[in-house]
């Protein structure tokens, strides 16, 4: 009963905060295929298809531009899913025809969780690069196809723009910052429970387990079976159960490479109104190589 009351209270808080959370936005954080279809010729809307070039050429949303995932996240210094240099990133944004006032809808495939989180990693990177209006297409390109929407095979050559902005460093946390934040911030491990508990680990991660005092909020809990997102209230209930209801509390999410954790980061920030959510980009790939970094099972 107490839990239900807490959740209701949190929901009311979310509703009260909604105008503030969405005030900087001209588009909802998650849009459906009908919205995209209606806005295909809206000059402010840039639909960015992040699938591989071959997949894009085989069929894509009409007018969507292709900027594959590897343009937004690269391997750097032996680490996966790292940010490109700012000038390279600005080139990607500009050459996709995106300007600071664009409404960007990120589209990718949604076959599995890693594909789905490609989409949120790109959205998070766009926010980092200074784009305010970033939205996700619910269910991705898969949903577009199952909804039997029009598909084009004409590759779009966008009119490039010069893009430059001040990057938002506050969206990412470095290892030192995470280290200092243990016990102060809410550190969120978004991997599946077996990885959090140390039963399983990926080959490139040195140790099994989780960052000391981290809570677990598995990413798979976010989706319905068809790859679309659960509704907002349900998502925020799940998140609140792990991270609490304080929108001002610092939250640091991590996974194994800094990609998957962008999903909950995006939802908490854009749907839930949490004000200080950071992604630990190095994640366990970096953390577990440091013998001084507290890690537990």
């Amino acid at each position, binding site marked *: 009963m107490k839990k239900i009351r807490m959740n209701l209270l949190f929901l009311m808080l979310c509703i009260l905060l909604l105008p503030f959370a969405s005030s900087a936005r001209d588009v909802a954080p998650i849009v459906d295929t009908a919205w995209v279809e209606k806005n295909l010729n809206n000059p402010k809307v840039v639909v960015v298809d992040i699938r*591989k070039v*071959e997949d894009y050429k085989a069929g894509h949303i009409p007018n969507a531009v292709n*900027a594959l995932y590897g343009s937004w996240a690269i*391997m750097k210094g032996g680490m996966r899913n790292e940010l490109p240099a700012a000038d*390279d990133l600005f080139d*990607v944004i500009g050459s996709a025809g995106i300007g600071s006032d664009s409404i960007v809808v990120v589209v990718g495939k949604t076959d599995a969780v890693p594909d789905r989180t490609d989409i949120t990693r790109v959205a998070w990177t766009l926010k980092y690069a200074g784009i305010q209006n970033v939205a996700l297409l619910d269910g991705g390109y898969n949903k577009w196809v199952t909804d039997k929407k029009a598909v084009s095979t004409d*590759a779009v050559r966008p009119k490039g723009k010069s893009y430059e902005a001040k990057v938002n460093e506050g969206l990412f946390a470095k290892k030192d910052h995470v280290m200092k934040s243990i016990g102060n911030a809410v550190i969120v491990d978004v991997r599946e429970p077996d990885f959090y508990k140390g039963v399983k680990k990926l080959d490139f991660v040195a140790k099994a387990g989780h960052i000391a005092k981290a809570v677990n909020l598995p990413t798979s809990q976010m989706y319905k079976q068809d790859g679309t997102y659960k509704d907002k209230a349900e998502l925020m209930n799940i998140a609140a159960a792990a991270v609490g209801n304080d929108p001002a509390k610092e939250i640091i999410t991590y996974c194994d490479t800094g990609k998957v954790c962008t999903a909950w980061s995006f939802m908490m920030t854009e749907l839930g109104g949490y004000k200080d959510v950071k992604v630990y980009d190095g994640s366990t790939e970096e953390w577990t190589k440091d013998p001084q970094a507290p890690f537990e099972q």
Partner: protein
Amino acid sequence: MYKGLLVDKSIIGKDVHLEENCTTCHKGDAKGPTRDVAHKGLVARPSKNIEVCEKCHEDISKSFKNSLHFTSEGQRHGVTGRFSKDELKVFNEKVFEKSCRSCHSSCGDCHVKAPVIGGVSTGLLKGHRFVKKDEGKTCALCHGGRVYPEFTGDYGGAADIHYQKGMICVDCHKKEELHGISAASYVSRKEVKERPRCTNCHKPGEEKTESARSAHTSHNGKVSCYACHSGGAYRNCYDCHLGKGSTAKPGFILGLNPRDKKTVTTLRVIPTVRNTFKPAGIEMEHFDKLPNYWDTAPHNIRKRTERTRSCELCHNAKKNFLTKDMLLKDGSKANEGLIYTPKPIKK
């Protein structure tokens, strides 16, 4: 049943090739009452015999017969210089025909069904439609060891800037290059005058910034484009032994181009070692005539790299330049001729 091998019935009669009966190309007996009878004399890859395609595509078929894709001559050319006359004979009989030539491509490997790699095929490209191109299912498979994954970024690092901008193989490698250059046979892709060159699109003098123009002018004729614009590590293959294959690891090596000995370029370790062909009884009498490092065009081009960002990296730190200490153990004596030490910048 694996659907990749199923013919899409809806296309029969719609594609000009499928106006013919299956048996026109695949032989067998269409009226055979049992599978065994119907498949008697079946030809699985009809275009292995180019004459099947030549009936209609006369010009392309004629030049394709001499293309490196069909002849695999490039593979022979790469090692011929290491052999004596007698060894070459043995190589041709025991190695080239049985090993190298087994992976030559036919028309159908690019236009109908994905090529067989390591005994595995992903099946028909599009339900047996005859397609003009589908690089991700054709080029990507045969050239999937190094070129393609470097190009798409799947080998690590970032994707090639051309791929990032939506270009795929045939956007640079035109059909003239892929189908063979003429009725004359040739042995190396370097002989193909239609092969892509960076300067075909990126004209010297048309750079957008003064710093780029100045860097290009001062390095012109001394350094290849790849040396500065290759984005990072590419695949190098080591220690190939006939029948056992080689081992691969990423690396980035700069040195003199073995073809001219004066241009600094990216070098790739090739897997031929002193005893590669020993199982075939070939000692390679002239092994030391050719180096173990060859100039390469890594398909991981970036506008900006650590070398375009800092002159010091080459001119001071000499990062990634081949040195005597780095040379392969028991490698060719020709390797030493590729070492180049960059000079500090005059201030």
